[in-house]
């Protein structure tokens, strides 16, 4: 079966500093991959590269077997296949929840306002935020904002979801409500790449865990292998620090 996403020998540097070095990654349809590793290890950069938000230096990224890094490829067509959710929510503050969610369906996918509204309402009801439909983002809690950001991405009916440390900016008691949304997506069979610091969550939800260190994929494997029996010294060290911090 063609992988949903295939990253080969990807290199990315910012002003001479290499952030990602020879990264290879394969994500099968309906697979959930968690990227773990300390801040600055390149998790976010990889997700943004896949979403074509930042250009890559070398290597290739294939979606459904088709290269998306070719300059002749229309990045907007690629992005329509995937949704990305950011650490800082990045909701549009001048728009209501409804407008945030319906913007792309209406403007990019050409769906009528009525249909887009209907879909927004369905999503909000499914995730228990129907009463917030006409609120502005600054009247919502962080957890609610992040859930709306996920719905905004889902409203474009993506085949792949990218999550960039979506709970890192949240108060601890709001983390669960966001993670539960992602668990729900897994049950529906969504293909996902999740950069996260929530190790317990990664162990639960991932089919495959990748440990990044200094821009390199140091270790990749099933959650049980990575968390239970890590091979690399750096992985052990990283996990030990997480355990010491009481986060695993």
């Amino acid at each position, binding site marked *: 079966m063609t992988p949903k996403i295939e990253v080969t020998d990807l290199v990315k540097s910012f002003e001479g500093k290499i952030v990602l070095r020879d990264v290879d990654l394969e994500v099968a349809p309906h697979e959930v991959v968690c990227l773990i590793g300390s801040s600055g290890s390149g998790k976010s950069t990889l997700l943004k590269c896949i979403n074509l938000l930042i250009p890559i230096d070398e290597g290739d990224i294939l979606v459904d077997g088709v290269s998306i890094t070719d300059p002749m490829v229309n990045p*907007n067509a690629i992005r329509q296949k995937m949704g990305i959710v*950011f650490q800082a929510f990045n909701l*549009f503050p001048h728009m209501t929840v409804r407008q945030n969610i319906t913007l*792309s369906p209406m*403007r990019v996918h050409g769906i009528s306002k009525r249909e887009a509204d209907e879909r927004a309402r369905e999503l909000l009801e499914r995730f228990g935020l129907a009463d917030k439909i006409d609120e502005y983002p*600054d009247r*919502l809690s*962080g957890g609610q904002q992040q859930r709306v950001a996920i719905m905004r991405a889902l409203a474009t009916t993506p085949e792949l979801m990218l999550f960039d440390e979506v709970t890192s900016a949240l108060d601890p008691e709001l983390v669960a409500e966001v993670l539960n949304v992602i668990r729900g997506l897994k049950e529906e069979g969504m293909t996902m790449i999740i950069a996260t610091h929530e190790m317990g969550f990664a162990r639960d939800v991932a089919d495959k865990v990748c440990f990044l260190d200094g821009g390199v994929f140091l270790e990749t494997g099933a959650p049980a292998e990575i968390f239970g029996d890590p091979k690399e010294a750096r992985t052990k060290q990283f996990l030990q620090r997480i355990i010491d911090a009481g986060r695993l």
Partner: protein
Amino acid sequence: MTTPPDDIRGPSLWTSMRRPRRHREAGARAAIIAAFSTVIVGGLILWWVLSSEAWPEVQQQFFNPDHFVASWPLVLDGFWLNIQMFAVAEVLILVVALVMAMIRALRGPAFFPLRALVIGFIDLIRGIPIILLILLLGFGVPALQLTGVPNSRLFWGVAALVISYSAYTAEVYRAGIESVHESQRMAGRSLGLTQVQSLRYVTVPQAIRNVIPALLNGFVSLQKDVALVFVLGAREAVREAQIYVASTFNYTPYVVAAVLFIVASVPVARFTDWYTERVRRRRQSVGGV
């Protein structure tokens, strides 16, 4: 970023915060003191001016009641043209400048020629004194006797104002666009919006909100600069006053014109302050979002 708890709703903090009684009394006392000292200072200045030796002569030349009444309708009539020019020019400036700023914000090598064109235009126009541009277009273009374009000096005078002010205003918009965080653009692009859509729906609406005080400042400036077209002979307020002065050698009509300009500009200045204050309060009440 701070995240408000679930129960925060409505215009929080600020409106619910009542001043205690003691503060209100202190406020009233402060107002009385301010009024009292204003009367004293104002009175002293007035006494000093009116009692000066030159005052009767000054009053005769600049504040002559007869000339004031006689020139008022003429200057007011001319001022109507100022207002019309201002209204037309301002609308055009806001649109043209926004288009230029948006072009300048487009990224990617394909848009390089467009960006370069806009940057070159802005540099060029901002380098030319506005009065020179008015003379150049206002006298120059009609003299060409071109077919298919208006040959009115007034038209080209206003066009010069629009061109000049658009260059400055484009830079105001640009500052606004740059003040919107990069992550907003990324969020827009990640949803599949094109560059132009992302500007149109995501960046620009936020940018405009951020620069409204600066735009209003430009309003006030333009309100007075429309008077510059008097050099083309347009019979606006300053020109009417000048005609009156030329026949009477009394300068009161200039004061009449000044009064009209001031009356028109003060409300915009007050509105700017009010708006800026409102935005500041709203920002505080939502905790820095």
